[in-house]
């Protein structure tokens, strides 16, 4: 039996560790809406307002139904860093503050994965969510600052 050399063993051990610790690197987060939603593009400023529920209605007057992902998902980490600019604990305080001021009645809806979010947004005409751009299916991807996921300068790229 051929005994693997030390370099090969080290490589076999380290690559999975590196991949796990860098799961978010190279991840583009797509902002998705229902295919019936006429919105095709939003600015970063408007996206921040929507995700913070400072803006709660679409341009046509329909109520925005915001759906987030659970704590710990790579997609949520990108959005916390790039849009909310706060950590998860601060975000929970933020939602509670908005409830205290009477701006919202409860925390936003939260689902466990990009698949769940895509499925929900695909069924609910006025919903908006965020998913791993490589997992988009059955929904419309919205441009942010004129760019789609994968394009140079896309604001919600993790790297």
């Amino acid at each position, binding site marked *: 039996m051929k005994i693997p050399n030390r370099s090969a063993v080290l490589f076999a051990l380290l690559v999975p560790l590196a991949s796990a610790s860098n799961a978010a690197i190279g991840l583009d987060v797509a902002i998705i809406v229902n295919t019936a939603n006429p919105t095709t593009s939003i600015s970063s*400023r408007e996206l921040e*307002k929507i995700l913070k529920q*400072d*803006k*709660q*209605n679409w341009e046509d*007057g329909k*109520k925005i*139904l*915001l759906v*987030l992902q*659970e*704590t710990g998902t790579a997609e949520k980490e990108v959005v916390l860093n790039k849009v909310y*600019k706060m*950590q998860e*604990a*601060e975000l*929970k*305080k933020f939602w*509670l*503050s908005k*409830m*205290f*001021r*009477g701006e*919202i*009645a*409860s*925390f*936003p*809806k*939260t*689902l466990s994965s990009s698949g769940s979010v895509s499925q929900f947004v695909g069924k609910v005409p006025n919903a908006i969510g965020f998913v791993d751009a490589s997992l988009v299916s059955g929904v419309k991807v919205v441009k942010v600052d004129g760019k789609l996921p994968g394009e140079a300068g896309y604001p919600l790229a993790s790297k």
Partner: protein
Amino acid sequence: MGMRMRAALIVFSAVLLVPSLATAQGAPEGDEAEAVTPSGSAPPRLVIKGFGDVNFRLFREKATNDDTRNSFFLGQIDLFLTSQLAERVSVLAELVAKFRTNNDPFYDVDRIHITYHLSDTANIRLGKMHAALGYWNQTYHHGAWFQTTAARPEIYLFNGILPIHLIGIELYGTKALGPVDIDYTVSAGNGRGKTLADTTNVSDFNNAKAVNVLASIAPAAIPGFKIGGDLWLDTIPPGDTASRVDSIRERLWGVHAVYLNGPVELLAEYFEMNHVVKSAARPSYDAQGAYAQAAYQIATEWKPYYRFDYQNVESGNPYLTAPGRLQRHTLGVRWDPFTWNGLKLELSAGRRDGHNERALLAQTAFTF
């Protein structure tokens, strides 16, 4: 360091052990899966949150003798209820248990209102709500856990000089206009009662209604910065004493500026108040109040802070019967061992009507 000061610090240090137990047991960090828009057949879902605080205060010098000295004391217990009745209709209620200076508890409906969210630009609210004055009143109010500091600014004390509640109707909204976002609130309601302690929950004392307007702008070029102003006009009814036989015209205006960005917290507010007694002589009395607060978040859990408080009430005012001038400096630190609990320790030193005041205040504020 005196014995009493040492005892206070030992007590405060012991309190620090409690959060470490909670952390070791994996205390829940709050819910995430919420917000179900009610269907036509299902009843609305009620969300209940609570807020409370427990305090210890040590006075070294006092200008007056009407406050509790060197004492543990309970803050307000705030039961906060919200419900989404329909896609564009929500309800909020705030029930508060408080304690008088004679230790007797009493209970109050601090807020109860229904809001019709017509659009981002237009929301209509009816009921008992926070008056649209400044920043602190609408942001913190009864939730000591929300505010950085242990004590409220002097101008926002409950039963202080400002009218902090309104029972009536309010129209508010926000609008993006190019490089700025504009927020506005216009409200009308029952206004002041006969004394500062009165709240006109079920009956106004006169036909005149208070009118309250607030507007603020937030420039997109300076994230986290907002500046605004407000105006309150009211006619205070006559009181039940010989010195209060006439109505009083009240005019109050204020400005505020806040900057909240990352670890930085900067708040500043200023108010001017004028009372004119509607008698033949029409005497006029002025009052001013202000605070400026700065805080900086360190390593997510620690937040040192400083605040300057100022208040000046002209003597002879038949409505503001505690005249005097106050200037106070407060220096403190807040530690959040986990998300839902804040421990605060602050020293304050100032002068009230020519007399020195110094105090140490320790607080554990929490939400549940």
